[in-house]
């Protein structure tokens, strides 16, 4: 068996075990409400958003419905993987796993892939349902490119949160700390990032909250590159021709690459020096 096959087999075992977990069963109704539920709501022909705005295209509806991914799916990713390493540490299994001759970097990769697959599979199923709901309700189907970007960006944001949760899990010596780390990071980027943006704007002398102010839009666009949720929205905005926040597409994809590579590298590094 090649090293890649070993990694994939280990990932598949994690996926199989976690897909049937009670935790995921609890998350199913939440995901159902947040993903197809939001897609159904935002695709209502009579919907009027704050500011009197009405979404015109199906991609725009998917963009608004992506709030469900940010609030629900990422939380699901964190809740499924926050104890990916700390649970094994507490049970003594980590010691057994680390004493196997499989390189630790490969073990880290298998963990990432396993937990990512666990969250991505149900989410992908529901995203396809979203596409069907929006296409049916608006009588307009998203293009292949839009669909690919929509699915790929969602897959990426879930990967980032799984990476954060696993990274936190390597540092946590007990479950409470692990969940506090994982949920804390999620909370910070999901709810507190607006506060960070506001504080930076205040410090930079940019008028706060004026949504039509070009300086505010540019600042918010730049700062969003430093947040996984922001990068996710930037990625979706690449398919919305009416939105321009002054951030070039290459920078958006570059940021996405960095958000993928840096935590993954950090996790591998942590695994190498991990003491059971």
């Amino acid at each position, binding site marked *: 068996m090649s090293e890649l096959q070993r990694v994939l087999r280990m990932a598949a075992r994690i996926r199989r075990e976690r897909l049937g977990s009670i935790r995921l069963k609890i998350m199913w109704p939440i995901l159902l409400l947040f993903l197809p539920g939001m897609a159904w709501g935002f695709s209502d022909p009579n919907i009027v958003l704050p500011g009197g705005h009405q979404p015109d295209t199906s991609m725009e509806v998917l963009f608004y419905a992506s709030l469900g991914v940010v609030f629900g799916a990422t939380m699901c990713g964190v809740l499924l993987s926050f104890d990916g390493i700390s649970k094994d540490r507490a049970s003594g299994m980590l010691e*057994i796993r680390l004493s196997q001759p499989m390189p630790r970097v490969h073990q880290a990769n298998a963990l990432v892939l396993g937990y990512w697959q666990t969250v991505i599979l149900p989410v992908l199923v529901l995203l396809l349902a979203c596409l069907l709901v929006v296409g049916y309700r608006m009588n307009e189907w998203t293009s292949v490119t839009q669909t690919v970007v929509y699915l790929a960006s969602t897959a990426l944001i879930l990967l980032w949160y799984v990476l954060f949760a696993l990274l936190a899990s390597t540092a946590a010596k007990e479950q409470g700390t692990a969940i506090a780390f994982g949920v804390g990071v999620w909370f910070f980027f999901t709810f507190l990032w607006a506060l960070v943006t506001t504080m930076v704007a205040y410090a930079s002398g940019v008028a706060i909250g004026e949504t039509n102010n070009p300086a505010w839009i540019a600042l918010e666009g730049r700062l969003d590159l430093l947040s996984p949720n922001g990068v996710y929205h930037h990625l979706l905005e690449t398919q919305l021709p009416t939105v321009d926040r002054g951030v070039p597409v290459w920078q958006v994809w570059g940021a996405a690459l960095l958000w993928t590579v840096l935590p993954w590298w950090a996790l591998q590094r942590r695994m190498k020096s991990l003491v059971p």
Partner: protein
Amino acid sequence: MAKVVLALQKVQHRHRIASPRWSKPWAARLGPGIVDVNLNLHEGAVLGLVGPNGAGKTTLLRLMAGLLPIQEGKAMARFESDELKPVRDLRPWVGHMPEQVRWQGRQTVEDALMELADMRNVGEKRVRNLLKLVGLAQRQDDPLNNLSQGMRQRLSIAAALLGSPKVLLLDEPYNGLDPVASRAFTELIRRLASKGVSVVISSHMVSQLSGLIDRVALLHQGQLLDEGRMKDVEKRLGLEGRHRVSGDGRFEPNELEELNVERLGLEQRENDWTFTFRGDAPRVLETLVQNGNVIERWGPVEPDLVEWLCASTGLEPEDITLEVRGPSMVPYAAVGVAEDE
């Protein structure tokens, strides 16, 4: 003597412990661990690694299992050739059974072992054979959550044996095993040793290991105080040839004056007594019986960890038994222990 398969030469691993300062909140310093340990593991020999809580037994085992890096010193091994060569990764050759693994989850026994087998590139047949060997073949489809503590220990043993190891490390393996399983486990260790596997068993119960181990290594405060055959170690520590006899009624030590017996202890209770001595045991017994004493029990004194530690460090029992090592480690000098056999 059997050839050495793994030789640790002046190895050290000290744990890093957080020592935050205002200017450097992430600062850490070296804490307890093991220091300057020289230890040879022989082919087909069972080594008992004994020491009190916090002596460094688990650290030493983890180091030999390739879980902790060797900070100083080196490991030489004879795994692939007849020559002792420096070895970088010990994990392919070493089977490690940690203390108290809580196998849990809905995964089946076979699946859990297969997962580890995949990590070692070991096939399904080997997994089934191992489950049979440790007596879990009938429970292979049970979820891990349904296993008792003893069964979990058996599964840990199977996991340690997955890669057909040349060195088998067992950390307190008797914890949780019932007497039947303990006996089967002892037999299994003997069988593995007879096939050339070098076995290391850590325990704080010396008496539990006597009769099973060929050699003993005495660890205290991160240092190896002595290592060798059990009898040799006892001899070096001045603890060899001790016997204890118990009887009813009163005991008169004067009865044994002519026998040149070294008196080590006498407990005289209301109705019985216990006498510990060093000397010609059969003659002592014969004399006692001839003098009309009713003997209840008699035999050699079982090895006792506290006595060993006292003898090798020069400390008093109360200093050894209640003192738990602090977070900073001061290398501790062995007292009166010969370097070589």
